[in-house]
């Protein structure tokens, strides 16, 4: 059974149409990440699920029950807020116990649950402190602890890590993920950080301007994006998009760039593109699908492209090389010592098995 089912949901703030017909079904126990640019309606969707905003149209079902008219407290949800939302006048213990007290839980049970959650989150030594005496990471743990003790059906997180520094964020990311594995609860997690989405999600729901652009497993979205937007949103550095056209090659189709280069597509990919010869397309190449061409590399689908490197950005294991490809700047993710300085001319091998082709009119991925 699904824990959450949303049908044709709309939400307006006055004139602003923030959620424009969202359909979403989340199976029990799944970790779903709502991701998208700032202002795309992630928080609105989450808050409507929580009952903090009312839906203007559509239905929300939690555990098989339509909850549109239920107050937040009757929806069996727990929520972790971006700014922790801890009560400054209560000690950590009381903050964690806050939700249990609302439900008249016996004192002994509250104590047991609070201590267990605190132990799980390694904050059991902080229970007697006030929130102002804690660091950002500790505050976030307390906020998570407050949700965890609740034993709710649905856990909602609205950008809980955005106030933490990078290192702490990595750490907490793993911790939340582990918490999900231990508890097996259905969790919905909002973030605008695509790396957070990729690393944490069982399923990513990518929102764009109030609509779901695409949803699926992280690698599904990464490898088989449905639109140019999805392809560009996921991945860092972002995918390179190069204007091109399709032309008939010797035995398969070629992608012809405006600088005259022709890149041969593998046979396997041509069937889907039948009838599109001569049409304009956008070629999408991920930086990591370009490598330094090696003499005698005969793997199928690799095509050679001569590039003059304009910019070299080493990151340690990898080096980002920027160069002109067709009429745009492209970035290739090479091995550390593949290129050493700007101005160098090198041969790049593009893995044509992995590129995508986009219809420039509709921005849909066509092959």
């Amino acid at each position, binding site marked *: 059974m699904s824990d959450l089912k949303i049908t044709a949901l709309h939400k307006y703030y006055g004139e602003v149409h923030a959620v424009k017909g969202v359909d979403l079904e989340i199976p029990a126990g799944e970790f779903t990440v709502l991701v998208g640019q700032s202002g795309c309606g992630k928080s609105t969707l989450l808050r409507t699920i*929580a009952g903090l905003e009312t839906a203007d149209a559509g239905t929300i079902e939690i555990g098989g029950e339509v909850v549109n008219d239920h107050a937040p407290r009757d929806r069996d949800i727990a929520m972790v807020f971006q*700014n922790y939302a801890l009560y*400054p006048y209560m000690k950590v213990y009381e903050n964690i116990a806050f*939700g249990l007290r609302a439900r008249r839980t016996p004192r002994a049970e509250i104590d047991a649950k609070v201590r267990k959650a605190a132990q799980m989150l390694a904050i059991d030594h902080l229970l007697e402190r006030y929130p102002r005496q804690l660091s950002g990471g500790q505050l976030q743990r307390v906020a998570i602890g407050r949700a965890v003790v609740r034993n709710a059906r649905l856990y909602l997180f609205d950008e809980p890590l955005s106030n933490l520094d990078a290192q702490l964020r990595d750490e907490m990311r793993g911790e939340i993920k582990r918490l999900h594995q231990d508890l097996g609860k259905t969790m919905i997690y909002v973030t605008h950080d695509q790396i957070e989405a990729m690393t944490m999600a069982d399923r990513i729901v990518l929102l764009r301007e109030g609509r779901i652009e695409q949803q699926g497993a992280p690698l599904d979205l990464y490898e088989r994006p449905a639109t140019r937007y999805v392809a560009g949103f996921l991945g860092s550095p972002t995918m390179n998009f190069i204007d091109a056209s399709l032309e008939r090659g010797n035995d398969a189709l070629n992608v012809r760039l405006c600088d005259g280069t022709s890149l041969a597509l593998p046979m396997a990919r041509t069937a889907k593109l039948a009838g599109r010869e001569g049409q304009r397309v956008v070629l999408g190449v991920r930086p990591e699908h370009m490598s330094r061409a090696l003499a005698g590399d005969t793997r199928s689908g690799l095509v050679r492209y001569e590039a003059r490197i304009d910019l070299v950005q080493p990151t340690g294991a990898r080096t980002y090389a920027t160069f002109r490809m067709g009429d745009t700047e492209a970035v290739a993710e090479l091995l550390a010592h593949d290129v050493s300085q700007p101005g160098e001319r090198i041969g790049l091998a593009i893995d044509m098995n992995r590129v995508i082709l986009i219809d420039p009119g509709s921005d849909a991925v066509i092959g």
Partner: protein
Amino acid sequence: MKAAHRNRLKLAVRLAAATLITLLFLFPIYWLFMISFKTPDEIFSYPPKWWPAQLQFSSYAVLFRDGDATTVLNSLIVAGTSTVLAMFIGTLCAYSIARFRTGGDNLANWIISQRMVPPIAVVFPIFLLYVWLGLVDTFPGLILLYTAFNLPYVIWMMRGYILDIPIALEEAALVDGYTRWQMLWKVVFPMSRAGLFATAIFTFVFAWNEFLFALVLTRTEVTTYTVQVTHYFGGQSNFWSKISAMSVLGTLPIFIIVGFMQRYLVRGFSLGAVKG
């Protein structure tokens, strides 16, 4: 450690200045207290006597014997009850305006504008109304009036304090299983405690000091101390000790309240009370 030395000196100068100013302001109050303990001769003696030869409690004894002191009690009842009422009703109104945008954007401004009506403009109509309603010289009459007069101030101030509470704190409580009413007690009131106390003190002080309405709307039953004091200003000058004793009685409650709530008062002021 020259810098540390200079800082110490600075602090000393500042403390000295603060002490001087405090003494300057405290002096009239000291004088008032002393007069109430002096004999009539001492009051008018020249050069002035800084300290009575013997503390005289006779002025106070007279006040309690003649029943004048009960007017202080009347003031306490009227100011206390109207403060509690205005705070309770006003805070709920303020919450509604702040969070549910009750009355749109301008209701709060309209409400505070009500506070700007000069009392003298409405005192006569209210007197006629009260005669008709039989509320003249009754506790409910005066309490009702002071409550109504203080409501705009309470609503305006509390709205500012409530707007300062991060809304996520309220939402977290609603999600965690509290009703909105429970949440008010668990979150909104504790979060705005400093503001609540500061506002309550001002409300109380207004009602405590109010004179015009008390003069017009009371006779003998609920005379407040501010009205009572005026009865002493006749031709005879030997009422000075009585006047000062009465003034002391009228000042004490404020001293006590502010003394107890000083902590919140200072924080209440420094919080973002002024909010458009």
